[in-house]
C-alpha cells in the first residue's frame, strides 16, 4: 500500500510538472505579431489538422504541403508567416479547443483547417463570431463557406466536382440511365450522394435505383446484382477509396463493364493499387492533377518528392495553394489584422496556383475549373 502511494505521489508530481510546463509555453508566442518590420508583413497563421488517429495521413499531407509553401513564401521576403500547428485527432471537440487555443492564447491572424467538414461545422461558427478568417483546405461538404463571412475554403466542393465529371461522362458515353451507390453512414459519402442525386436530376438522367452500403462492408454482390439487372449506362458511386475499390473489383468480376463516376473520396491512386485492372473506367473530377504540363506543378512535385520522399496528393496540393492565397491576401492587406485580412481574402480573384486559376465567390466558396480524370490502363489520365 505504502509503495503504491509513493508511486501515486510521484505520478501526481510528474503530471503536475507537465501541466506547468505546458502552461509556460503558451505565453511567449504571438507577442509582437502584426508588426511589419522592414517591409515584410509578419503573421501567425494557426493550423488545425488531423495529425493523430485513423486519418493521420490527411493531416500529414496537409502539414507537409503547408510547410513547403511556408519555406518558399518566407524565402521571398514579402510576407513572413509563422505556422502554429495543432492536432484535432479528427474529433469536433478537440478541433474546437484547438481553435480556441489558437484564437485566444496564440492570437493568430487566421486559421487554416480543420481537416474534416464535421470539424469545420463546429469550428467555423466560433471563428466567425470571433472575427478570425478561417480557410478549409479539405472541407468539401455543402454549406461550409455559407457559415459566415470569415469562413473560406479552397478545396473543390463536391457541388463543383461531381457535375463536372458527370457532364463529361454523359457527353462521351451518351448516358441516359444511371444507378447510384453510396455509403450512408459516413458524412463524406452521404453529402457526396446528395450532390450526385441533385446533379443527376438536373441533367435529366433517369435514376434506376439508389443502393446503400456501410463503412467496412466487404460484400457488395446484393447491390451489384440488382444494378446489373437494370442495365444502367453509368454507375455513380459516392464511396471512399477503400470501399470504392472493392466495389469496382466485384462489379467487374460480375461482368458490369459500364464506367463509374466517383466523388472526391474515390479519387486516390490507392484505387488502382487495390482494384488493379478493375479500376479502369473510373471517372473523377479533381482540382489536382500531378502530371499536368505546367511548370509550377512540375516544380512543386519535384520539391515535394525531394523533401518528403513521396508524390504529393490533392490534400498536400490544396494546402500548398491555400498558404499562397493567404500570403497573397496578407500582402494586399499590408498588415496582420484579422479584418483587413478577411477583406483582402474576399477580394482574391484569378489567383494562379498549382491547382489552376482560382477565385473566391461572394460567399467565400471556390470558383475554378476542375480537371476530369479517368483511369485507363492502370493510371489516371485526363479525360476528354
Amino acid at each position: 500500500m505504502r509503495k503504491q502511494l509513493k508511486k501515486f505521489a510521484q505520478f501526481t508530481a510528474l503530471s503536475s510538472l507537465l501541466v506547468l510546463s505546458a502552461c509556460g509555453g503558451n505565453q511567449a508566442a504571438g507577442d509582437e505579431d502584426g508588426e511589419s518590420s522592414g517591409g515584410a508583413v509578419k503573421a501567425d497563421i494557426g493550423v488545425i489538422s488531423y495529425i493523430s488517429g485513423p486519418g493521420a495521413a490527411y493531416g500529414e499531407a496537409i502539414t507537409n504541403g503547408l510547410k513547403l509553401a511556408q519555406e518558399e513564401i518566407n524565402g521571398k521576403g514579402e510576407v513572413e508567416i509563422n505556422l502554429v500547428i495543432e492536432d484535432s485527432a479528427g474529433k469536433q471537440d478537440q478541433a474546437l479547443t484547438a481553435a480556441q487555443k489558437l484564437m485566444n492564447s496564440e492570437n493568430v491572424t487566421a486559421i487554416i483547417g480543420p481537416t474534416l467538414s464535421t470539424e469545420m461545422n463546429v469550428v467555423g461558427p466560433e471563428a466567425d463570431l470571433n472575427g478570425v478568417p478561417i480557410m478549409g483546405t479539405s472541407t468539401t461538404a455543402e454549406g461550409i463557406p455559407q457559415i459566415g463571412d470569415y469562413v473560406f475554403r479552397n478545396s473543390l466542393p463536391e457541388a463543383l466536382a461531381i457535375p463536372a465529371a458527370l457532364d463529361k461522362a454523359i457527353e462521351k458515353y451518351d448516358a441516359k440511365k444511371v444507378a447510384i451507390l453510396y455509403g450512408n453512414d459516413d458524412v463524406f459519402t452521404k453529402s457526396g450522394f446528395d450532390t450526385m442525386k441533385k446533379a443527376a436530376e438536373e441533367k435529366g438522367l433517369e435514376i434506376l435505383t439508389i443502393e446503400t452500403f456501410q463503412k467496412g462492408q466487404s460484400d457488395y454482390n446484393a447491390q451489384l446484382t440488382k444494378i446489373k439487372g437494370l442495365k444502367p449506362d453509368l454507375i455513380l458511386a459516392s464511396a471512399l477509396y477503400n470501399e470504392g475499390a472493392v466495389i469496382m473489383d466485384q462489379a467487374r468480376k460480375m461482368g458490369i463493364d459500364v464506367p463509374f463516376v466517383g466523388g472526391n473520396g474515390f479519387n486516390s491512386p490507392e484505387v488502382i493499387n487495390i482494384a488493379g485492372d478493375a479500376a479502369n473506367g473510373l471517372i473523377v473530377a479533381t482540382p489536382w492533377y500531378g502530371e499536368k504540363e505546367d511548370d509550377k506543378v512540375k516544380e512543386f512535385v519535384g520539391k515535394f518528392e525531394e523533401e518528403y520522399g513521396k508524390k504529393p496528393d490533392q490534400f498536400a496540393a490544396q494546402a500548398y495553394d491555400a498558404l499562397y492565397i493567404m500570403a497573397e491576401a496578407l500582402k494586399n492587406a499590408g498588415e496582420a489584422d484579422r479584418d483587413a485580412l478577411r477583406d483582402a481574402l474576399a477580394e482574391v480573384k484569378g489567383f494562379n496556383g498549382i491547382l489552376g486559376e482560382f477565385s473566391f465567390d461572394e460567399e467565400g466558396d471556390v470558383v475554378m475549373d476542375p480537371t476530369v480524370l479517368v483511369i485507363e490502363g492502370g493510371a489516371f489520365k485526363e479525360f476528354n
Partner: protein
Amino acid sequence: MLAELINPYYLQVASFILINIILGVSIYITLSTGQLSLANAGFMGIGAYTSALLTLNFDLPIIVGILAGTLLAGVFGILIGIPTLRLQGVYLAIVTLGFGEVIRVIFVNWESMTKGAVGLSGIPHMGRELLNTLKDFGFDPKILGLQNNQFVFLAIFLILLGVTISIIAFFRRQNRSRVGRAFAAIKLDEKAAESMGINITYYKVLAFAQGALVAGFAGALFAHVLAYISPADFAYHRAVEILIFAVFGGSEVIWGPVFGALFLTVMPEVLRFISEYRYMIYGLIIIIMMAVRPQGLIDVNILNWVKLKTPKRRQKHGTSSQKSI
C-alpha cells in the same frame, strides 16, 4: 484584470471536462449496483438529438429541450433496464452495447428527421442564446469588463459547474441514504440483498434509469455547447471512453470517475506541445495506470488517506460504516 484571466480556451476545455464528469457519474451510478452498462453513449445520443431537434424545429427554449432530452433518455433507461434485469456482467455489457449501436443506426437512417450521417448543425448555442436574452434586457458584458465571447464561455462554464456540483452532491447524498445502501448491498451480493428484503428489481431499474437520465442530460448539454452533433459522436468509441473514466479513476467511490474524466480530458490538451505523439503518451499513461493500480486511481483507501492528511472535521453519523465496505 478579470478580463485578462478569462481565456475562452481554458473555459472551453473546462466545459468539456465538466460534461465528461457528468458522463463519468452516469456510468458510476449503474456500476454502483454492479451492472456494467455500455448504453450510456446511446442515452447521451437520445438526450442530444431530442434536445437539438426540439430547439431547432419548434424554437423551444434550450432549457425545455434539455429537460425533454433528459427525461426521454430516462424513459429509455427504464425500458431497457427492465428486460435486461436478468443479465449480468459481460452479457449485460454486450446487450447494452448493442442498444447503443441500434440508437446510432437509427440516427443514421432516419434521414428525414436527423439528416443522417451529415449531422445536425446550427443548434442553438447555450452561451450565445443566454447573451442574446440578456442583451434584450439591456445587459452588456462590458459592464463586467468582459468581451462578448469571454462572457459566453464564462456563462457556460459557470452553468455547467453549478450543474455538475449539484449532481455530485445529490449522488453523494444518495449514497448515504437508504437507496445508496441498497445499491451497495446489491453490488456485493444480490441473493443476500434480496433475502434482506431489498426489492432488487426496483433498485436495479432505478440505478439504470438514473444512469440513463444523467447521460441524457450530459448529451443534451453537449449538443448545446458544441452546436453540432452527428451520429458518429455517439458510437461505441464514446461508450468505451466513458467506461475508461470509471475504470481509470476507480469505480468504488464517486470521486473515481470524476477524477478519471478530469484527468483524461485534460491530458490530451496538456500534451498538445508534443503534437502527434500526444495520443501515444495518453495510451501509455493508461497502460501504466492499469498495471500499477487495476482498481483505478481513487478508491476508499486513498480517500481515507486524504482525510487523515487534511485537518479533521466533525465526524458525521454513518461515515464510519462506509469505510468498512
